[in-house]
Each structure stands twice: as C-alpha cells, then as structure tokens.
C-alpha cells in the first residue's frame, strides 16, 4: 500500500521507500520507517496532500507520496 492511496483521515506506518533520492529528503523531515503517518487533508485540487508525521504537518505531492510504502 502506498501513502498516496490513503484518503484524508487515514493512517499508516512507513515500511520502506521506492526512491532513494526522495527517501533521503523525506527521512530528514522525520518521515522514517516505523513512523506513523496520518493524511490530514488533500489540497482542493486533489494534489498535493498534507500529512501529519512526527507531530507536525508536512505537505508533499502525490507522486512523492507514492514512493512511500506503508505496512
């Protein structure tokens, strides 16, 4: 299951990443394997999405969210 498939309000736990370059950036922002992610909302035009991770809000595009594989 990819993060991009979650709907607003749904939660998941990060398992791994499919893209090395993106993973480095996401992990720096606290989005690490084992971390719980909650999709807070989806932008009015359907992209990007806002997630809650490690206690704060982070926005990322759906394409970027699709590189995050959830447990």
């Amino acid at each position, binding site marked *: 299951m990819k993060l991009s498939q979650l709907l607003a309000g749904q939660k998941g736990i990060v398992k791994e990443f499919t893209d090395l370059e993106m993973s*480095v950036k996401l992990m720096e*922002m*606290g989005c690490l394997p084992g971390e719980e992610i909650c999709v807070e909302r989806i*932008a*009015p035009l359907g*992209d*990007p999405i*806002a997630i809650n991770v490690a206690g*704060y809000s982070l926005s990322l*595009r759906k394409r970027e969210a699709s590189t995050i594989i959830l447990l």
Partner: protein
Amino acid sequence: MKADLRVALVGNPNTGKSTLFNILTGLNQKIGNFPGVTVDKKTGYCTLPDGRNAEIIDLPGTYSLYPKSQDESIVFSILADRSNALKPDLVVVILDASNLKRNLLLYTQVADLKIPVVIALNMIDVANKSGIKIDVDLFAKRLGVPVVPISARKIEGIDKLKAAISYANEIALQNESIDVEAIAPQLIARMQTELQLDNPYFALQLAHQHETVKFLSPTENDTIEKLEQEFSFHSQKAQGTETIARYAFINELLYDTVKKPETAQDESLSNRIDKVLTHKIFGFILFFAILLFMFQAIFSWSSYPMELIADLFVWVQDKLHHVLPAGPLTSLLVDGVIAGLSGVMVFIPQIAILFAFISILEDTGYMARVTFMMDKLMRKVGLNGKSVVPLIGGFACAVPSIMSTRTIENWKDRMITIMVTPLVTCSARLPIYTLLIALVVPNRNVWWLFNLQGLALTGMYVFSLISAVVVAFVFKLILKGRERGYFIMELPVYRMPRWNNVVYSMYERAKTFVLQAGKVIIAVSVILWVLASYGPGDRFERIDKKYRQSQYTKTLNPDELNRAVASEKLENSYAGALGHFIEPAIRPIGFDWKIGIALITSFAAREVFVGTMATIYSVNGSAEKMESVQKKMGEAKNAQTGRPVFTLAVAFSLMMFYAFAMQCASTVAVVYRETKNWRWPAIQFAYMAVLAYAASFVAYHVLK
C-alpha cells in the same frame, strides 16, 4: 563595532529564530551579503551580562546541514570553514520544544562539527500548554550542553540565554551523538590524514558537499574525488544511513527525557482553521477576498495620509518660493528636487500598508497554505506552489522576490518564476497607476461597496497575475528541465502575527524605499531640471525676445504670457529635444514628447515617472500657484486640439506600458546575480519590451 565574541543562530525554519534575533539585537542590526554568495546576512550586536559585546549572525533556517537550496548551503560553509572570517565562536541552536524530534536532527549534525553549542529551547510555553513535559536537566546532561528554555514571543528566558552565552565554554564539550566514522570508515580516515582534518564529521560532510562548497582548493577537491571512487562512496546511501542513525539516537534521548500526553489529542486548532482556509470552495474564495481587501485597503486607508503629505509638499514649495530669492538655484531646489521628491514621498503610506499585509500573511503561516492550495494549478503553467510566494511578494518588489526564489529547488521552476516575477504589479508601479487612475477613472462607488478606482486598480493587479501565468506557460514549453522537481514543505502551525515584526517590516521597507528611490529621484530630478531649463544654442534667448514683442505683451495677461514662455522653453530645451527625438516611436501608442521624457527618465526605475511628471509640469506651470502633480496633469491640454492630454486611452496605454516594460535597473541586476548569466536578464528585458509596446498599442487604439 568591535565584537568580543561571534555567535551564530542556527535552527529549523519556523522555530522563532528571527524573533529571537530581533530580541537579542534590537534595532541594532544590519542586512548585508555573505561574501561571494547572494544570501542575506543579518548581523547585530548584543551586550552580554559580563559586559562583553557579542556579534550575532542569523543564519538561514534549515532542516539539516545537507542543503536543499542555495540559502541553506551557506550554513555549513559558515560553520565548518575555519578559514572563513565569519566562523562563529559559539553556535546557539534554536529548537522548537513542541517539535523536538525533527529539530534535533540539525542539532546533532552541528554538535558533531565540534563547535561550542548552547541550546535555546524555544516555545517552551506552547509545549507545556499542550502537555509535553521535558526534563530539561536530564536533557542537558545527556547532550552535554547548556540548555535554556525560552519563549521568544513572550520574551521569557532571554536573560538566562544571554548568561549561558557568556559562560559558554570555548571548546566543544558536547557528547557524541552517533558513531560518525562507522558510516564510511576508510574514506573518513583517509580524508582526515590526507587533508589534515581533525573532525571526522567535517570530513564526511566534505565528502558529500565538496562539489558545491567554495572554500576547497582544486587539489583538495581532486583528492576527495579520488578517495570517493577508491572507496565507492555513495552520497545518498551514506546520507540515508546517517539520518537513520541520528533519529535512533534522538528517539532514545526523547524516550528518556520527554513525556507526551498519552491520550489522543484534541484536534489541533491549526487543523480546524485549515479545514476552512484550505477548503475546496471557501479556500479559494477567501484567498481572493484577502487579495481584494488588501488592494482596497491600500487605496482607501492611504488616501488621507497621502493627501497630507502632498499638501505638506505644496505648502513647502509655496513658502520656499516666497522666502528664497527668485533665480535658477531656487528653481532647481523647488521645481527640481522638491517637486521630484514630493511625487514619490506621497506613496510611503501605500508601500507601508502593502508590506504590512505581506508580512502578516507570511507570519501567520497563511502563505504556506496558499502554496499548498495553488501547487497543482501552478504546476500546470510550469510554475511550482512555492512560486506563489515570490509572485505575491512581487506585489511589493521584484528584487527581494527574485531572491526568494532560491527556496525553489527545481532549476526550471525557479528560472520560470524569475522570468515572470517582474510582470507582477510591484509597489513602484503603484504610484503610476494610482496617479493615472485618479486622473481618468471617476471616484465613486458601484454596488454600494466597491470604489470604482479601487476596482480599476484591482483590475491592473489581476491582469498582471494573468499575464505572468500566460508568459510562464510559454516558458514552460520552451525551457528544458534539468532535474526532477519535488515539493516537500512544512506547513507551520497558525500563529498570531507578531505585531512588532509587522511594524518593523513597514518601517524597514519604507525607509529603504525612501533612501534608494530618493537618491535616484534627486539625481534624476537635478539632471532633468537642467535639461528642461536650458536649451541648445540661443533658442531660449530667441523665445524671450519673441515674447517681448508688443503683439504678445499687449494681448496676453502676465500669467498667460509666463505660461506661454515656459511651455515654449520646455519644448525647446534639451529634455524637450530628447522627448521629440523619441516621439515618432511612441506616437502610435498615444504618447507625446512630454511623456517621452518621463519614459526615458524612468528607464532605470519606474517610480521616477511620477517625479518627472511633477518636475515637467512644475517647470511648465506658474510659480505663483503651486498644485499637486495630479491636478497639474489633469489640467494639461494638448496644444493643438485643446483637449486634455491624459484621456482614458492615453492613461491606460501608459499603464499597459508600465505593466510590461522592464523599467527597473535593480531587477535586471538581481536577475543577473541570481542566474549568473547575462542571457536571462537580456531575454527578459526583450520579451517585456515587446509585450509593453504591443499592449500599449492595443489599449490606445481600443479605447481611443
């Protein structure tokens, strides 16, 4: 000022770093550039409890020492390069107490560079309120550094922080966070011996960043490159390993020192606000309502102070004309310098109000939501959600906005944003628009609420946004991308704006405007006055002689005579000659030679237009009757037809010209500085000139 100690402030974005900087340094600060790069360097001074004087450097906010943008790359260079003149003696790392986990990543990186560190645990009040309990003593003991809980917003704990800075050790005593050598043991060891580096983490960072940092010699660079190949060093993998190790350390630390409330938290206030502000429909309605309100406010709130300033200048000019002896010097001062200045000073209220709004939108966190809402739309036209900030900032001034595009990581997105930002109606165009709109658009309300002039101005702003979007789309088709773009951005929690920051920004911007524009305008006014007051050969004498003839002195009263002389002199002056020279080129878009003079003088800065108009019509008008520029322009009649010069068609044609033409030397310079290539400002100048002429042509012929 001589400093005994240099202190760098380092921290994540949105941690209150700038607020702390303002508190520590007060108004005793200056903005400059870091040598060799175009990153704003904010420095200030602070007196410590022991009497020593500390120089405080505010470094750009960053999430890690691995830079994602140009601004962020300066942080590592300043901290690590020992030959750098700005290398700090001490680093104050600001941590957001309510979001410690992510904030600590940067701390552990800085700490591993073995520079003396003090931690400022900011927003401790917010953390306490939401039930987060931090065992500060244990936290400090585990890290081996002084930790001072503060609240920069409430100005609490600042004295303790100053004390901690003055008692800080001169050598770094912090505990190890992770085993840095384990990430690339052989490479780090060899780099340390070959480049004589005593710090393993500095060696590792150089392995990652040696291609971008500026302080390495070519031989050092080659050595690092060679070693990297020898040990097949993979930058991204190593960085991933490091980040995971650091978070493991952080999790363990936080597990022992921080207690968070177990029960599910209430839905945060920010979340509830976001439900409305980023709503599918209300979100956009509100965004446009805010923009509309902003422009209405700029127009209506500023009208009273503007009239006051204009009247003041008229009064001063009037008095000076009576007090000073008549002659060329008085004329230079009153009709040249003061007339030119007054045309610009009246716009201080508008600029202050505009910057107040922009600073409030940034400060509250709303700007980040606009970025979030607009990203998809912006991407369609080749921009990026983050382009919204420079574009909205472009309403104020293109120069800082183009500098702020450095936060856009993607090269193509950034170039397109730079290319279209100067199209957005900046504050220098505001004086021109308000003057011309006030001349030709009636001042009355429609549908009870909207002022017709305010609507016309809003229209110009919307039009500028539309043209920026269209041009961006064209550039999207032409330019080729270099790398993939991404959009990972923190959405900061909503906060009340810090009113003193808002006031400070208003003051700072108005001051910059007055000083920078003022200098140009005085210079241009003096030159223009000379050009307008003298003519080639004996033309002026012949005019004087001509009007001394009885056919004129008898038929015209003295006032009319003076006006006829002045007007003919202006036409025959050097400035008039210049205006006449370009008149054939601008006649098709409805401009006469007087406007031609203003186009030439405002070539380097748009706001000079109004000053020039003021000077031209002062030289032309009678000295006895001082009036505001607007009144003089309104009364200007075409010599042949007797109809007003500034008709609807001419006014809108002029506005179109200023909407598109790149009449700003500062923007050209900053685009060159940011792109490091003359091709970009040249292309920009050319396309804007073509659009300006075409749009003016259309506007003039449609409205004529």
